[in-house]
């Protein structure tokens, strides 16, 4: 059997089956086509402008490592004229971040980018381990997610940086589209599909405010599998691990679906992303109708980007069950007429309305304001992070008694090391 040749250069032997469209490519052509596509995404969406300082949200994982590497390459090749820096957030989970932060430190040296690491303790006065100690493992993901959403913006504001890029890839976006359909969250569905989510300057006049940060996802159209392949072929130094605390069920369910869809039709991930973009325009009350330009995506800060994205579809646990219960109770109430709608105008109770279906419920549009406590963008008086913090601080013991269980600590990091080893082996086999 003659070895097939690369579909692009037609000279080298094809060694890579491209996940996105199953074309057969050689290694240099794959690397170049991958980079060209990111470049294309950046230029068509005018993500960067000359002289801009851009903070890369770096976790040490494959996505942000590839993002840093590709952006460095492209910035030099096409002379974007932007300054790239690394920004890492330390949630303060022992054994989870320690090793990945070491990776980020090495990346900083490899890519010659300045690195800033900010801890939840510095930003909020609490590490995640302390939060878990306080609230238990159940529900701690809420805290982590809420804190994380603000952390990059807060960190960027401290550094005086106006633009943060994150490593969200096409799989993440597709997953979020399906997840929000499953959860019935249309406002969030319409927000998460846009490539740039920025907080308009109108919200704050203070140029150093952390509500004035632009967020973008240059890897939005890049397949996770291709990111892994790119990292592998470029010998990038990254760390793969999962959060040791519990994953979200809806995301897990959506992720499993996406993986199966990809198997049936490789283009499906991109097709879901496309559907998500189109559906965003159909959400009543969204401003996507104008192409997302006008008051676009005010809600960047509250965007549900990914929680921790660590679940691999292994659970369909409590989250779905509790939503099921909630919805079932609503249905029951509606059916038995327990839910009384209170209106100022007395409703005409006649047979007039019977033939017609009730008017479709409007999706409520969120009005964004500022948190009274920290000034962060919020649809409430006080933002979610401040509400959570207040609850935490109220219950904080006056004197902390800390005993570090070193034996346990060692065993955890040992396990993480092994997992990482297995992942690396897998990639080489591929």
């Amino acid at each position, binding site marked *: 059997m003659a070895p097939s040749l690369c579909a692009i250069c037609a000279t080298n032997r094809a060694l890579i089956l491209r996940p996105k469209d199953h074309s057969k490519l050689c290694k240099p052509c794959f690397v170049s086509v991958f980079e060209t596509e990111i470049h294309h995404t950046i230029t068509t969406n005018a993500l960067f402008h000359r002289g801009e300082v851009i903070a890369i949200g770096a976790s040490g994982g494959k996505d942000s490592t590839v993002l840093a590497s590709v952006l460095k390459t492209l910035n030099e090749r096409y002379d974007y004229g932007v300054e790239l820096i690394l920004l890492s957030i330390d949630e303060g989970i022992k054994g989870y971040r320690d090793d990945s932060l070491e990776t980020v430190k090495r990346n900083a040296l490899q890519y010659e980018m300045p690195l800033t690491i900010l801890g939840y303790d510095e930003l909020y006065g609490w590490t995640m381990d302390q939060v878990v100690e306080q609230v238990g493992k159940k529900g701690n993901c809420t805290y982590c997610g809420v804190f994380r959403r603000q952390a990059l913006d807060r960190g960027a504001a401290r550094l005086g940086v106006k633009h943060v890029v994150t490593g969200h890839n096409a799989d993440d976006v597709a997953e979020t589209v399906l997840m929000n359909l499953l959860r019935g969250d249309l406002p969030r569905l319409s927000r998460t599909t846009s490539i740039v989510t920025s907080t308009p300057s109108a919200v704050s006049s203070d140029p150093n405010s952390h509500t004035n940060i632009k967020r973008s996802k240059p890897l939005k159209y890049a397949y996770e599998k291709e990111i892994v392949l790119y990292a592998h072929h470029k010998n990038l130094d990254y760390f793969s691990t999962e959060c040791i605390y519990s994953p979200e069920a809806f995301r897990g369910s959506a992720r499993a679906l996406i993986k199966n869809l990809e198997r049936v039709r490789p283009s499906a991930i991109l*097709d879901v992303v496309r559907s998500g973009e189109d559906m965003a325009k159909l959400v009543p009350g969204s401003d996507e109708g104008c192409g997302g330009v006008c008051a676009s995506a005010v809600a960047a800060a509250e965007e549900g980007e990914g929680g921790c994205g660590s679940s691999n579809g292994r659970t369909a646990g409590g989250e779905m069950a509790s939503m099921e219960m909630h919805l079932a109770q609503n249905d029951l109430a509606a059916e038995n007429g327990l839910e009384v709608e209170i209106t100022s105008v007395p409703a005409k109770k006649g047979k007039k309305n019977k033939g017609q279906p009730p008017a479709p419920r409007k999706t409520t549009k969120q009005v964004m304001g500022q948190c009274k406590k920290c000034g962060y963008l919020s649809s409430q008086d006080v933002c979610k992070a401040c509400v959570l913090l207040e609850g935490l601080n109220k219950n904080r013991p006056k004197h902390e008694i800390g005993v570090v269980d070193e034996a346990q600590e060692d065993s955890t990091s040992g396990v993480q090391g092994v997992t990482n080893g297995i992942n690396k082996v897998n990639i080489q086999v591929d």
Partner: protein
Amino acid sequence: MPGKHLTFVSEKPCRRCKENLAVLVVRTEPLCRDCFLRYVHTKVIKRMESFRVRFSDNDQQRKILLPISFGVSSVTLLHILDQHLRTQAEKTRRTGFSLSILFVDTSSVEKSCSGDTLMARVQERYPDHQYASLPLHDVFRLVDKDTSLLGLVPGLKSNQDLSSPEQLSSLINSLTSATARADVIHALKTRLIVEYAKSIRCEGVLWGDSTTNLAQKTLAETAKGRGFSLPWQVAEGESPYGITFNYPLRDVLKKELVSFVELSEPSMSPYVHEPSLGATQASMSSKNTTIDDLMKQYFESVEENFPSIVSNVVRTSSKLAAIPGTSSDPHCSLCYMPVAGGRFGIHGWGGDQEDGLEVPVVGGGKGLCYGCTRSIPSS
């Protein structure tokens, strides 16, 4: 089998009549056989309010088309509406509407029942309606001659003499994946049903989709890149085909319909092609798995423990609203959905990195929407 329901609720009385023993639990409520059948019946009839006797015209009978596939859903819908029409006739000596039943035979291009035996049985059991059976290739005959649909058939230009069955097999054989074949067959089936409904002057189509089915459709169409068309895929009312669509089973779960078929007396099983759930458990590794299969399996498993999540998906996708004025947009040649600004094909958006910065060709190519282009690539 009703037996499996009995085993774990046998001790409880029915929550509604408080007299009989419950035979199954419906959304946390233990119900007896009669109350359950009434529960499903009521849910369906509630959706048919606009077809009440008092809204009907004395001179002209309103006619609606009910496409039947001999699946659990469409047979149940026929059964309930047949009963409903009898009750109307008994009470008022006239009916709010009349039914035309259409079976589309797709057995030439996919594994399905040919329908002859079932058709005869159903016609005998529910004799008061009009019945018709059409082969899928009749779509080429019914759709106007000059339509762009014919342009999709490979080889038609060089050979004008292709018969309809040949056109159909030529089109289906040109497709390269199971997903594409299922998708195209489904689109053609919808087109045929709509054209037939119009040709016999029906004012609308009653689709047999259950809640579960609509949720499955929502995610499947999303996965096939047809998110733009969702407002017309699950919502009731005027469709882009110029005829109204109704989904009377939209508040009933698939598993409830399966129980309905099992529990009704005399049994409805002889009229149903595959009466039980789980007939779709195709092997996942198989190359023949389609996106529709995948979503079907997914939602049949979700509805087991999380029925409200299934209905919430449908409620959610029904909130998506078509942008005003889109109905005048150019239509896709295959699925006939309006394509905003005539931006056909898979190029010219953020996720397309092949065509560089070029502006998409408006109205060019075969005039297929994004989703249909995935199934029938232009090259």
